[in-house]
């Protein structure tokens, strides 16, 4: 009989002490990030989708169309094309498309890029209704940013 009442007492005690913990929390400041009102800042190494890097002075792309990123990508989401232009050493970038629907943000492309022509963007607010919205023309984006 004594065991029975002890069990009830211990049970109620455990519940009350548990409630005590939650009660204490009630008077503590909110820890949740108030997202739409307060936008989080992304850390330096945050891996968003890739973006072409412009030269600091001219704003032109650093890409030399070596195709290493295209080769390194596990999902085949990068398409690079270039052409020979007279008077310019090497190839000139004509197309840099990223199919972001397939990208898994692993960053192998950025690692493989010798001239440092691509980097991660800090974009995390991406939403769209159509697949086509995620096939990015990175060359165009770079030119738009230059302006």
């Amino acid at each position, binding site marked *: 009989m004594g065991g029975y009442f002890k069990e009830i007492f*211990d*049970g*109620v005690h*455990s*519940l009350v*002490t*548990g409630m*005590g*913990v*939650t009660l204490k*929390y009630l008077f503590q400041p909110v*820890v949740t990030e108030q997202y739409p009102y307060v936008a989080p800042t992304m*850390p*330096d*190494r*945050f*891996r968003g989708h890739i973006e072409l890097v412009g030269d600091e002075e001219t704003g032109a792309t650093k890409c030399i169309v070596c195709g290493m990123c295209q080769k*390194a*990508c*596990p999902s085949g989401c990068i398409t690079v094309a270039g052409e020979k232009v007279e008077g310019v050493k090497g190839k000139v970038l004509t197309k840099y498309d990223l199919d972001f629907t397939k990208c*898994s*943000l*692993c*960053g*192998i492309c950025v*690692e493989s890029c010798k001239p440092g022509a691509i980097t*991660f963007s800090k974009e995390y607010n991406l939403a769209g209704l159509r697949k086509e919205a995620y096939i990015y023309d990175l060359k165009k984006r770079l030119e738009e940013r230059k302006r």
Partner: protein
Amino acid sequence: MSEMACDKHKETFVLNMGPQHPATHGVLRVKLVMDGEYIVEAEPVLGYIHRMHEKMGENRTWAQFMPNMGRLDYLGALSYNHGYAAAVERAAGIAVPERAEYIRVMTVELNRISSHLLWMGAYLLDLGGFTPLLYAFDDREKILDMLERVTGSRLTYCYFRFGGLYNDVDDQFLAEAKGFVARLRSRLPMYHTLVTKNVILMQRLKGIGVIDADMCRRYGVTGPVARGSGLNYDVRKNEPYSVYPQFDFDVPVYTEGDSMARYMVRMDEIEQSLRIVEQAIDGLPDGPVMAEKVPKIVKPPKGDYYHAVEAARGSFGVRLVSNGTNTPYRMKLRSPTYSNLSLLAEVAKGVTVADAVAFMGSLDLVIPEIDR
């Protein structure tokens, strides 16, 4: 299974739990033949999120397969990174600098803590307690923020490379990690007051879903489930890899074999992981985080290789077969929960649905890792 359900003289019926059921934590379906509220037979139906990672491995280079490791066990992705990197390093004979191994251990253990915290929150949610989830996520968020600063992603990490790491950690990370160890240590008693000592939890977990050591052996059960059944088996201790032998930590073992024992093992493991993280921060050597002589295109010599690591859910093994080229010939991924779940049919016989949920939750299932 169907025979039993078709028998008109037995008043049994089939109940589908899942594939969309909050307590199966993903797309697992369990076909249950019920007799009233009691389970007569249980049969897990897998494959709803099967992606054939093993075939993917045969179609890309060794390095390109690394991002896949974050997609198997998305809650403990760094252990999987570690297992795969270590397996390829063993095959190709790449030595990893000590600093890199220390950082690997540090991040893997932080990842383990975050996985256990999430498990605790989600498990208690299954059992009907909502509050602990919010507290656990508060702590877990700190880990995610720390790892995000270092690795660049919050969940599907792809941080380790053959021969080292993607990039080094900085002093801010070390300071934050140190602060986190102190913080979580001070909060663990709170969890025990709020949850562990709770009478409802004890009533629902004690004596539920008992697994004995022999059953573990027959089914190949590893990880916290085996340790909750009195088996002192931890790959970090039994088959030491990386720099784990340099750290002083205990392997929590409980002999009861019930859901409560598995709960206690994981809670104690958080403490032990904190100890490892603390020691790794204090003893972090200087030096490079990438081996010098790593070939640009890794081509392990012909043969097959095995490497196991202790992931948050048990022993994760990679069996590689290389034919000396830049793509794997065969890649077997041995995932711990696959074996751990296979005993469900035996344990769930004759228990109520509510107890089956309490048992399944205590296995810590992550479905993408089972289905691969």
